[in-house]
């Protein structure tokens, strides 16, 4: 753990992760409390009451696959199966898209491997009218809300059916009809925007709330402080999620201050209730989100949730994680895999088995394969058709002003 071999004795300190390539993965810093260790709070409790467990971990699924503790949402088998299906579908989709990027079909891709439950379970705990302000690793929300997979792929390959007219990098989805706010790519900007959206909802007397997601590294941004300040001051009906997947590209969470205190505990100074959750436990993520949503909807304001998980793949198709972290670090990750854990739980309940699971995987792989085939029929990034070239000059303003019109004419379109 105490590497820091390059730090001298001048007093200037640069933290380093527990293990770099070639070293033995070490997750001894992750304290794992057992399901039931963190009590359920009353929906209108004082924020302070949650702070005692800001370094704890809300868990429902034990490693034996049995659900337990106060936070067990007691979902019925069909709801559990639905989450399993969505987590698996997200993973299957990611897997295929990543490979297609490697084959040159896309400029860029980002998987959510290992942290799919964070998005899927949260989406299932929210209402469809709630506006989400995601980061780029919550594609699970889109599947949970039933977005057409072909449309998602058309966006990623920027073809003629891309709903964003080829203006955004792949994965930076936007889906107004599904109350899914445009993913920026600039980090944390959506966090305080989500608070503003939630304030407007409250101002209009509406019941919809907002939820936003950022990563552990992004908590270092000034907009994080902006969001927590606004959320606390105006008691906004918003859920602010920090997905602590341990890595920000090659930078470990300690560079964002994660070694000194949990990201959940950042909420203490703002007087926000804070929940720290096992992010690979779909039931715990569901329960925590449900609690925060109910609290927000009943006028008790915002909640900060840290979901503790592990980024199972590279940051994107542009980096090689073997260059900055132990190659098989994921195998040592103590909170396991969200898909396997939910599957074990369902098998334990007697509603699922390996055979059906394999069948589901095969069917989903086929679904994804066919969807991509269909998506390609609307064009590809390299061969087109794309959105009309002249459309690059649209939507800058409500109406095209003279100078942009002139530039369009310069391009000859």
């Amino acid at each position: 753990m105490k590497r820091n071999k390059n730090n001298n004795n001048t007093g200037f300190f640069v933290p380093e992760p527990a293990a770099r390539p070639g070293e033995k993965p070490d997750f001894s810093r992750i304290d794992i409390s057992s399901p039931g260790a963190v009590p359920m709070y009353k929906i209108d409790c004082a924020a302070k009451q949650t702070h005692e467990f800001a370094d704890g971990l809300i868990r429902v699924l034990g490693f034996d696959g049995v659900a337990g503790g106060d936070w067990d949402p007691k979902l019925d088998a069909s709801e559990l199966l639905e989450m399993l299906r969505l987590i698996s579908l997200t993973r299957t989709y990611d897997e295929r898209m990543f490979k297609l990027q490697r084959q040159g079909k896309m400029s860029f891709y980002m998987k959510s491997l290992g942290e799919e439950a964070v998005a899927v379970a949260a989406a299932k705990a929210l209402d469809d009218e709630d506006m989400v302000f995601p980061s780029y690793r919550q594609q699970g929300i889109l599947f949970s809300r039933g977005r057409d997979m072909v449309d998602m792929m058309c966006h990623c390959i920027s073809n003629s059916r891309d709903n964003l007219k080829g203006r955004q990098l792949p994965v930076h989805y936007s889906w107004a009809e599904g109350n899914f706010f445009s993913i920026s790519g600039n980090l944390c900007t959506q966090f305080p925007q989500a608070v503003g959206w939630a304030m407007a909802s409250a101002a209009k007397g509406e019941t919809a709330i907002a939820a936003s997601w950022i990563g552990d590294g992004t908590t270092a941004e000034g907009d994080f402080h902006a969001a927590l300040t606004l959320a606390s001051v105006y008691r906004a009906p918003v859920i602010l999620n920090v997905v602590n997947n341990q890595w920000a590209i090659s930078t470990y969470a300690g560079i964002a201050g994660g070694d000194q205190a949990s990201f959940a505990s950042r909420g203490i100074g703002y007087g926000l209730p804070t929940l720290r959750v096992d992010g690979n436990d779909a039931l715990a993520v569901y329960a925590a989100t449900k609690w925060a949503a109910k609290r927000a909807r009943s006028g008790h304001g915002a909640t900060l949730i840290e979901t503790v998980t592990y980024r199972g793949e590279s940051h994107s198709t542009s980096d090689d994680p073997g260059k900055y972290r132990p190659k098989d670090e994921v195998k040592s990750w103590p909170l396991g895999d969200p898909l396997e854990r939910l599957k074990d739980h369902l098998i334990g309940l007697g509603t699922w088995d390996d055979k059906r699971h394999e069948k589901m995987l095969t069917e989903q792989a086929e679904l994804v394969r066919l969807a991509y085939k269909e998506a390609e029929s609307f064009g590809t990034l390299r061969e087109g058709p794309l959105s009309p070239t002249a459309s690059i000059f649209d939507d800058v303003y409500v109406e095209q002003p003279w100078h942009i019109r002139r530039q369009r004419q310069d391009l000859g379109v």
Partner: protein
Amino acid sequence: MARMTMIKAINSALDNLMQRDETVCSFGEDAGYFGGVFGCTEGLQAKHGLNRVFDAPINEAAIIAMAIGMASNGLRPVAEIQFSDYIFPGFDQIVSELSRIRYRTAGSFTTPVTIRTPCGGGIYGGQTHSMSPEAFFTHIPGIRVVMPSNPYDAKGMLIASVECDDPVIFFEPKRLYNGPFDGDPHKPALAWSSHEKGEVPTDHYTVSIDKAEIVRAGSELTILAYGTMVHVAQESVRVAGVDAEVIDLRTLLPYDMQTIAKSVNKTGRCVVLHEAPRTSGFGAELIAQIQEDCFYALEAPVVRVTGWDTPYPHAHEWAYFPGQERVIRAIKQVLEG
């Protein structure tokens, strides 16, 4: 109609807007209960309620992001940034977010936000209360940048800005808040009550945020100005005794090139004024476009009179401010050139 200062005109615009449209709200540092450090939102909280006019934390990124979120959820927020010198913590939210959300979502999300912010010098504000940062903003596709030069335009343009579906940065030349200023600090301060543009309707009206205004017609040369410099230009022309056409640009992005080109093609000579520093200032854009569109009509090189390429000094404010003497020198240079 009533006699109004620019402060009262802005206040009246916000009052009319809030009266007509329940989605309009206004917030900023000290802009709630107290009514703003310049008083532009005075009395609005008492009249329209705490939920529509309120104090914001000292975090410009938070203020602008909050406005973006609100606008994406159907409100028409008017965010006040106390001094334009303080806008930079919120710059990312303007450059990367506010200006691009319509574009990056192909029109499926829109953020009609108006950001009001006082700018410019002439009040002994030193380097943190005197900036004219408009050129940073005219370089951002997707936002409109406007700056009125009198109470009548301020009210009409603010209403037009808030009602516009594009995001707008609304610069308020603070030296003009209480009266016109011709650039001579030794003269007694003038009040808007004696100026025709201090006569302002109490009801709702708009002034176009697409059109420049020819504030003085003339034939010998064209002077392009905005904000405080409009008044400096007019007085300089009077003192110099030349027949200049003075154009108040009013809108900097997108600027009214039609009016500019028509005038420069007619006069063949042009002086461009702004308080902001010279290098890469907005004048550079105007002159580049003028030489593209009016080159064969030009009789002399176009000249700029601007603030210096230094931070805005405190004690030497009047050596920095592009006053009448420098404007008159430029007029002569262009006429002789």
